[in-house]
């Protein structure tokens, strides 16, 4: 029964896809508007001045650096921890395995507000002052699962035979890791890292609980949304944030496409 889709279904499916994409385009449009007090559509005029204005706004740069730093450190930690977990879980069967996989999944399965509030409670009870590291603690935790998912999917696809072949040819565990496992795993890890970076760079819900008075770029944006100053500048920053998440995701997709483990299926 492989008949063609009805027009109604085609329209609904395409309409759904457009619904998912068109709103984002507006962000780009409004970055060029000459109207800075309202969201009047269509924009009364167009200008590129806001990019210059954003560049010269001193309050944007520190949050940008903080976000980049947090995302970089969290991604690195998540890549190490996620890969280790995936290596342990890929083939072995042991007691408590299901519980561990649930534990890895939990930080993104439960709403962010719970992770955030939990960390906030822990910092409160242990009198830990807010710092870059309190933000990293939260971010690395929910990024582990992203790297883990990518790594374990690739490990499952790898045939165990190549590791045995490597051992038969006289390589020790470390040589096998360096020359056999890592080259096969590389693109999946890179894809996981990219997704983790995108997730961390953009994260706002957990961050508001773990940042204290610090401001990451998403927190800066949130403040602008609640109390707008120059609205088009917010759009310029939004474009930057969008690009900083969009590009890594595309790269992750191209690194892993074609396999059953295409990156991004589980967020």
């Amino acid at each position, binding site marked *: *029964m492989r008949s*063609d*889709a009805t027009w109604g*279904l*085609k329209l*609904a*499916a395409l309409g*759904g*896809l457009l*619904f998912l*994409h068109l*709103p*984002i385009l*507006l*962000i780009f449009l*409004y970055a060029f508007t000459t109207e800075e007090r*309202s*969201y*009047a*559509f269509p924009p009364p005029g167009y200008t590129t001045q806001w990019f210059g204005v954003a560049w010269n706004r001193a309050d944007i740069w520190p949050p940008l650096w903080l976000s980049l730093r947090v995302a970089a450190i969290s991604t690195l930690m998540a890549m190490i*921890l*996620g890969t*280790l*977990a995936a*290596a*342990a879980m890929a083939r*072995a069967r*042991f007691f408590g395995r299901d519980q*561990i996989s649930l*534990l890895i999944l939990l930080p993104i*399965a*439960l*709403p962010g*507000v*719970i992770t955030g*509030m939990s*960390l*906030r*409670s822990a910092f*409160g009870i242990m009198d830990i002052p807010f710092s870059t590291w309190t933000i990293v603690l939260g971010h690395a*935790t929910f990024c582990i699962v992203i790297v883990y998912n990518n790594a374990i999917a690739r490990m499952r696809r790898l045939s165990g035979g190549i590791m045995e072949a490597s*051992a038969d040819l006289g390589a*020790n565990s*470390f040589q096998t890791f360096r020359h056999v496992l890592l080259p096969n795993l590389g693109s999946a890890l890179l894809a996981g890292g990219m997704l983790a970076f*995108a997730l961390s760079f*953009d994260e706002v*819900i957990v961050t*508001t609980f773990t940042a204290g008075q610090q401001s990451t770029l998403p927190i800066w*944006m*949130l403040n602008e*949304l*609640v109390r707008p100053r120059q609205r088009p500048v917010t759009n310029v920053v*939004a474009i930057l944030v969008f690009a900083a*998440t*969009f590009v890594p*995701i595309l790269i992750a*997709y191209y690194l892993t496409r074609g396999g059953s483990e295409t990156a*991004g299926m*589980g*967020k």
Partner: protein
Amino acid sequence: MTAPAILPARGAADRLTGTFWRRPRLLLVLLITPPLLWLGVVYLGSLFALLLQSFYSIDEFSGVVKEEFTLKTYGELFRAQNLDIIVRTVVMATAVTLACAILAFPIAYYAARYARGPWKAAFYLGVMLPLWSSYLVKVYAWKLILAKEGILGWAAAGTHTSWIIDGILSIPGLEGSSLSTSPFGTFLVFVYIWLPYMILPMQAALERVPNSMLEASADLGATRSQTFRTVILPLALPGVIAGSIFTFSLTLGDYIIPQIVGDSSRFIGLTVYQLQGTAGNTPLAAAFAVVPILIMLVYLTLAKRAGAFDAL
């Protein structure tokens, strides 16, 4: 001369390899310990701190947290205003989940059963990119769309359909000066943001429905709609439930969207945020944060019974 069957160890790395070979559990333990320690200490530790905090209470006069066990804070959840918040959040999460399921179905169905080749990739990317792209940027985009002077109002005025928006805004409970200050706006944004989370598991479930079953159904004389109702829908249901776990849970905890779009009525997430921040009532904030956990536990138990986890 033949080489010996067992090569002599060339160094510490080789000897370690031998140890790993003889005792595979040792390698396993070495691998799993760092991530387990991290998640156990940082994450489970924090969850425990959350629970602990929720059993503390706040001194009403001094505003200082009293660190002794009490159920008083949980009792406060049952005040009328707090129950209101919980009910409002659950109703919103249910509505959003239903709307997502309805909107997601055609996309998932088309992508799973009809899209081939480049279209398949286009559909995949078309769902994945909005899923991953910046959450805040997407919310902001809807602020632009729903604003009174924004594109939706402009399009409605241009097509003389403003009465639809005005009609929605005059429904009791959905009032607002524009969609961006109406609970209906909040609902729309929730649906938009969480829609991809519903599409992906649904599509995965639909892709697993074997063609032979549809052929059998047709051979046995079922019409398209009968096949749809009695074969496709029941088989897709675990995927729908899996997706609903995400949409439901994410709506329960979100506090950014109601803050930016809507009539600033309070939801669980927003309440937690305000209680721990400006109000400084961390125990009550913690107790509120436990509510979505409990709701999700019930939800997950029901979902597990419906076989949703095979579709994850």
